[in-house]
Structures are given as C-alpha cells and as structure tokens.
C-alpha cells in the first residue's frame, strides 16, 4: 500500500517536473511551474517560508517522503536502480555521518558566502535540472525536429524545427558526469547519494529522525529472514537489531512489501515504535567521494566538433558570430542584480530550458558556474518574452511584467568603430537603429564636418535597456560592431 502509493505519486511528480524541462512549448511550464517552486532548496533561496515550513512539517509527519516523491533526482535514482535486476542487491550499512555532515556544513557555508557554483553542484534539484536540460532535452529536440520535417512534408505547421546547440561545455560535462556517477551509485547501492552527499537529504534527516509515522519492525513477529534489509535502497534496516535508521529511511515501503510475515514490519505512528538504538558513526568511505572529485575535474578539457553550416552556393556564406567577452556578464531582466542572482540561483537550468530565443546559457565563470548568463549571438531578449522570470523557482529571476521589462536596463550597448559595416564596407546600414525597441540608437555622421562620411550608430546609454537586438542583428561577423555590456545592478530607465 505504502509502496504503491509512493510509486504512483513519484511517477506523477517526476513526470511533471521533467516536463518543465522537456516540454518544447510553454504549456506545461504554466501548468506545473509550481512543482519547481516546492523543491526544497529553491524555496529556501526564494525565502518561500510557506513551502519550507510545509516541507519540514511533511518530513516531521511522514519522514523523508520528500526524497521519494517530490525530489526528481531521488525518483530518477530509483529508476536507475531498476536497471539492476539482481534480487537481493542491498544490505545494511552504517550511516556515513562524518561525510554527510561535513558536506552539509560546507554547503551551508557556501550558501551563506554566496558561492553559487558549489551550491549548484551539490543541490539535488539543480543536478536533475542540468541532467534533464543537457542530456534529455536534446533527445526531445531531435525527436521534435524529426516530427517537424515530417510535418513540413505534409504541409502541416504543427511542429517547427529548433536549433540544437551546446550552450555550455562545462555544464554539459558536469551533467554527464553527475548522471554517470549517480547511475553507478544507484545501480550498486540505491540511495547512496541521498544519504551521503545530498545536503537537502542530510538536512531533512535531522527532522526525519523525529517523524511521527515511521517504519517499525515487530520483534515478536520478525523471523530475521533479512529480506527487508536486502530490499532497502537506503541501507538503513538493521534487521538483526530490529532497528531502522530514520535519518536515512526515505519511506519507500519496499521492505513492507518484501516481508514474508506481513505484520513483522509496518509504517505506523511513533508511539507504537519500540525505541530504536542509535548507531555510532563510521569513518568516511573514500569511495563515496568519487562523485565530488569527478564533478570538479569535469570542468576541464574535452572538445566537441563544431557544427558546420550547410550553405547554398547561390548564397553568401554567413560566418558565425563570435561570442563577445563582456567585462560584466548580463543577467536576465527580473534578476535585479548579479548578487541577487548569485545568492538565489540554484543553477537548475529551468530558465535556460524556457528561453525561446537562445539567449540564456549556463555561465562558465567559476564563481557563477552554471548560473544563467546572457549572450546575443543567436538571438536577443525579445520584447514579448518574460519566460525565464515566470519559471524561476528560486527567486533569482523575479517575475517581471513585459512593461517593466521594456524599461529595465540590464546593460547598455557599446559601439565598436573598427567593425562597423558603414566604416569598413562603405555601405549604408543602420540595422541596429532600425531594430532598437526603445529607440536608443540614432544614426549620426561619422565626421560631423564631412557630409559624405558614413552614418554610424550613436547609443543613448541612458535609454538603452541592453536587450541585444542591435548586437544580434549587427551584420558585422564574426566580430560584432555593437555589443552589450552588462550592469551589475539593473535599474529602471
């Protein structure tokens, strides 16, 4: 009963969260956006007290149900573990207390110190978001493009093709390594990650110890067959002593289903549970650290073949735009400031998934690693869009109306004379002026004393909102003649 309920709930919640990242339309994001917002760490960062208190109460009543049902990374590990078809794959082991409390300690320090990249590396929902966005989403996009070409042949507009591109190599590698490490851990030992590394798991375990409902072994009924322990993915059932480590139990209910003597093990209110003996902590298991080490190493090296553009001979070749190196990175409208972003972002990539204009991508900067940053080679922050602000669960990008967005300055355009087409090619241009949504660009004579001198853009920095229309549509390639410098703190113009 417990197990079946848990599985059904887990599937429903997992599908909802996953769709947030994989749905190529914005339908599900509007329907299930709240699923991201009830994730523990995003809620904490968004100071969403209601959710945080709610989740703690949930844990105090049911134990770590959160880890089995709400956390998509937890559910994903359960799915991974199913690939191991061995019958008795688990056995009891003692809690790795030193490791998990040390990780939690550093995690809290990082959180307080605003070390977003370390926070993002450890946070479970963020890891899942990255995996979904970097590994699963391209597959969905591939399928979409196949459908799009099929639709095109049939003259249907039901599907439209999308660009599949690597937004950030470090983030991709971290996602891939996380995925592989998690798979190995889950395949071999079930919820190892959740009970040693995961800071949310460790934090919830502090409350789960005192949960009202808990798994209990009836010493009188138990025949010590050990089936419960061998089915326990949290390795928390010490059947020989009739004890369960509630700090690690994720209330999956597998043990209850496996028990031959149906009444020997049950999920029941605390007063019926015999006092469990506390087990002492054991030395740190070096092998379990592989996850962290591997992730850290992952940021280096590896090259991906550059996408080659197929060009029709009757058409001029178009060079790819070089990515501008900005002295201040641009953060999306609604993020208020770079520091607000750094403090709240869990790097879950939901905004990156949601961005329909190929603007957002994970940062490669070490301090803000994997947090969203903007660049305009593929598109610009279009005036009719505020998708990222509507999906962010962590308060890193606050909801922003289109009207406010259109007057929020996130950066300002900078003109680069040596690349400007009228100066270089001697032809008329003005494409930046034509497309500036706020009219911040005026075309002026390069030399005010020479009427024949080319017309070049003059940026009114006080009106510019930094949307990047000018940069994206600037014909100078690969080096743009106008680009946006980010602002540390956004302001209204």
């Amino acid at each position, binding site marked *: 009963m417990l197990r079946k309920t848990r599985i059904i709930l887990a599937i429903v919640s997992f599908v909802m969260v996953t769709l947030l990242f994989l749905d190529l339309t914005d339908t599900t994001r509007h329907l299930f956006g709240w699923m991201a917002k009830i994730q523990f760490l995003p809620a904490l960062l968004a100071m969403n007290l209601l959710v945080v208190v709610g989740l703690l109460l949930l844990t105090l009543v049911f134990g770590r149900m959160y880890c089995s049902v709400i956390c998509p990374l937890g559910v994903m590990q359960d799915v991974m573990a199913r690939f191991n078809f061995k019958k008795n794959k688990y056995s009891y082991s003692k809690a790795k207390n030193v490791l998990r409390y040390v990780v939690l300690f550093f995690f809290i320090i990082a959180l307080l110190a605003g070390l977003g990249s370390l926070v993002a590396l450890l946070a479970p929902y963020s890891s899942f978001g990255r995996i979904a966005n970097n590994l699963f989403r391209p597959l969905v996009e591939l399928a979409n493009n196949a459908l799009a070409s099929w639709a*095109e042949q049939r003259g249907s*507009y039901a599907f*439209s*093709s999308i660009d599949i591109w690597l937004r950030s190599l470090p983030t991709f590698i971290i996602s891939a390594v996380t995925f592989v490490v998690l798979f190995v851990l889950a395949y071999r030992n079930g919820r190892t990650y959740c009970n040693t590394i995961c800071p949310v798991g460790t934090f919830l375990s502090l409350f789960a110890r005192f949960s009202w409902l808990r798994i209990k072994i009836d010493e009188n009924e138990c025949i010590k067959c050990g089936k419960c322990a061998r089915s326990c993915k949290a390795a928390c059932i010490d059947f020989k002593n009739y004890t369960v480590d509630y700090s690690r139990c994720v209330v999956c209910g597998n043990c209850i289903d496996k028990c031959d003597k149906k009444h020997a093990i049950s999920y029941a209110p605390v007063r019926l549970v015999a006092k469990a003996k506390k087990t002492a902590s054991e030395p740190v298991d070096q092998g379990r650290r592989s996850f962290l080490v591997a992730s850290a190493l992952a940021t280096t090296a590896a090259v991906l073949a550059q996408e080659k553009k197929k060009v*029709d*001979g*009757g*058409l*001029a*070749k*178009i060079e790819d735009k070089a990515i501008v190196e900005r002295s201040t990175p641009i953060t999306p409208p609604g993020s208020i400031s770079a520091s607000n972003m750094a403090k709240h972002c869990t790097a879950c990539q939901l905004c990156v998934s949601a961005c329909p204009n190929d603007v957002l991508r994970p940062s490669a900067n070490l301090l803000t690693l994997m947090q969203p940053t903007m660049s305009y080679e593929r598109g610009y922050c*279009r*005036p*009719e*869009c505020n998708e990222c602000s509507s999906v962010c669960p962590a308060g890193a990008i606050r909801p922003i109306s*289109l009207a406010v967005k259109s007057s929020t300055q996130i950066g300002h355009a900078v003109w680069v004379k040596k690349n400007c*087409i009228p100066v270089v*090619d001697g*032809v*008329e*241009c*003005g*494409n930046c002026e*034509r*497309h500036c949504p706020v009219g911040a660009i005026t075309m002026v004579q390069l030399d005010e004393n020479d009427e024949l001198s080319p017309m070049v853009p003059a940026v009114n920095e006080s009106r510019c909102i930094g949307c990047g229309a000018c940069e994206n*549509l600037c*014909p100078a390639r690969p080096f743009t003649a106008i680009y946006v410098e980010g602002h540390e703190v956004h302001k209204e113009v």
Partner: protein
Amino acid sequence: MSKIINRRDFFKLLGGGVVAASAGLVACSGKDGQTTASQQEGEKGKMTFRTSPNTGDRVSLLGYGMMRLPVVGGGTERDHPDAAIDQEMVNKQVDYAIEHGVNYFDTSPAYCQGRSEEATGIALHRHPRDKYFVATKMSNFSPATWPRKESMEMFENSLKYLQVDYIDYLLLHAIGGSGMDEFNTRFMDNGILDWLVEQKEKGRIRNLGFSYHGAVSVFDQLLQWHDEGRYHWDFVQIELNYLDWNLANEINSSNTDAVYLYGELEKRGIPSVIMEPLLGGRLANVPDPIVAKLKARRPEDSVAAWAFRFAGTPEKVLTVLSGMTYMEHLVENIRTYSPLTPITPEEHEFLMDIAEDIFNLKTIPCNECNYCMPCPYGINIPAIFSHYNKCIKEDNMPTHRRSAEYNKQRRAFLVGYDRSVPRLRQADHCIGCGQCSPHCPQSIDIPQELHKVDVFVENLKRNGKIADVEA
C-alpha cells in the same frame, strides 16, 4: 534579357496544368472512355510559327529559355548550385522540342552560373544547323566583362560553347537599368556595339537586337537611333504579359507598360521576343478565386495557358520564351501553341479584369529570377518575398488580430518563414546597403520591401503574446 519562368514557379504551373489535364481526362473518359493522350500532348506539326521580316526566319511561337536547366539529382542549379547540369535530360528535352516544332533557343553567357551555353551547344549540335535558331547575349552582369577585349572574348566564347559559326539572334543583354550612362559605358564607349554590327555584316550574327528592362529613356533612345538609321534593330526582347500590359507602371513607377513597348515596336515593324509571359510563374500561381474565374471561362485550360495565349496573340510577337526545366513544362506549353488560339477582344478585357484582381493583392512583384543574388550579407531575398507572396496568394495572411483564424495563420506564417528561409537569411538581417536593387529587372526597391516584411514579422512576433492572452 531573357526572363524565363523558374523551376519552382513551373512546379506551380505544372500543378495547374496537371489539374487541367486530369480534369480533361475525367471529362473525356466519361464521354467516350478513351484515353486522352492526344489532349495532353501537342500534336506534331501544329505549332504556330511567326516570320521575321528581316531574315524570313520561320520562328516557332514557343521559344526555349535555357536559363533554368535541370541538374543531376533534380531541380535547377538555383537549388543545387554545385550539381552538374543533367545533360542527358537537356538533350532529351531539346530533341522533344525540336520534334514538336520548337526552333528558337535562348541562352546567355551568364545563365546557370555560366554553364548554359555549353549545355545548349551540346544539345543543339546533335541537330542539323538549319533546324534551329540560337539566341545569346552580350551580357553585362559583371563590370569585369565590360572592356572591349573582354566583350569580344565573350562573343567568341559563345560561338565556341554553342559549337556554331554564327549566332542567329544576338542581344545586348538587359539594357535600361539605371539609364543611358550605364548603356554608354557598357556598349558605346568601348565601341562594342559597332563591332557587333561589323560581325553582323560578316555574317557571324544574323539578327541584332536588345533585351530591355527598366528606364524607358534608354528604350526610346535606342528606337530613335533605329528611326534615324544609326542602328538597325532586327528584334527587341521585352517583358509582356497581361499584368504588365496596362499595370507595369502602376505596380512600379520606374517600369513601363507593355502596351507602350509593344506598340512602339509594332509601329516600326520590329518583331518582339517576349520574356516573362508568366512573370516568373506568378501568373500561373494565383489565388483560388482567380483560378475559379479563369476556369469558369475555359475549364480545360490551365491557368498558365491564359498567360501564354495572351503573350502569343499580338501578331508582331516573334516568339514567347519559357524556361522549361522539366519535360512536363514543355509538353504543356507546346500544347498551348499547337496551334495558338488567339485571345479574343472580349477575353482581352476579361484578362484586364483579372490583372486588376492580381494587382489588388499587393504582392511583392518579385519573379524570383535571382539576379539580385547573392546578397553580400547573406539575405535570401527571393525566398523571403516568395514566402510573403505565398501567404497573400493563399489568402492566409494573419492581418486581423480579432479574426478567429489569426493565431493559426500567425503560426503558419512564422513557422513557414523559418522553414523557407534560415533565420540568419531573413529580412531582419537586411542592412539596407542597396547593392541588390540595381540588379532587379522588376525595379523593386528591395531593401524597402525587405524592411516592410521585417516590420510585418516583428509585429507578428510581438502580437502573439497579446493575441494569446486575448484568446
């Protein structure tokens, strides 16, 4: 300049033709149960011919434009610029054309990325020299070919590639453009026109003429020289179709109505060679209500047949050029002219009404000739215009935000736009440098039209949000 309908448009034309043909089939099989191959194919020996007053040439009313030759793997070089010309197919089609009376073949050193003359030569060389007339041009696409030496070389190369000792019809290519200055630089200052006249005296050119687009002052000036006896034009190639007959100037003030151009030539007894009978296929691909009107009149004729009949009806028209990429094009056109059923005065009035209908569509008058390409900044100009026009013609323009169809049409327009034109080649990337405009035989202000499309698309993108909220 020989303007020939292109492949894509011919597909559309073909579509119309097939519909017409199969409509005929169904009708007939109901009546007598016979197959109607003869109805689909023009009968041999029935082709309408016109006689040139200068040389007495008996020219078929259908002329073969060699601008959009098929390439290996299907399509034309425009779609597959690196593919080789499908010589076997060219030979087959030229054979079929000659077999059915077609004897005028129009090429140019510029066509098919410079490969048309050679392919034409190979195909024609397999036939007796007195079975065909070949027309080629003194082209002016690249200023590098303008000096005297290079121009003479161009003519000698034409003879070499076409494998002939003389050219039947030689044209000064696409005169008009931006006025007399350019004409003088290209043909007068280097003495190349006089040299061509010499070649004609030597018998290496049998008929000397010009093809005309753009500034009417150049057309008038050249005819004045003809009147003064300074130069004699054996023929002139003009754009003529039922839309341009009275409306060319109204569509674009720098263009001239065909009724004037043809009238001036007829007055002087100069035979006209007709290009753009279909306006790059635009007259074969019209909105359904117009198709219905045309079909109601002559249910068994294709939409394109009306345009060909119109272009072939004036008596002083020597031949009507059509770029025929596929055998089906040939078959259909030969049928229309075997023999020609001239347009009656009443039908003429009817077509003038149709022209008014088409004019009122406000499509961009682009015939997708690709002369503007390649845009140095990578814009796919004809593809953008084609998509825009297509949505107008299909009556699928998302123009009314309150209409129930708006969201559907909007999606169709935007998704279709991305499919037809890669994002980086779309109108928002047009910088307005204007290097394309002088090349446009239709004198379209290309940057202005591109910016118009851009604004339309931009509004469409922005309105989506509002429309979604309202819906």
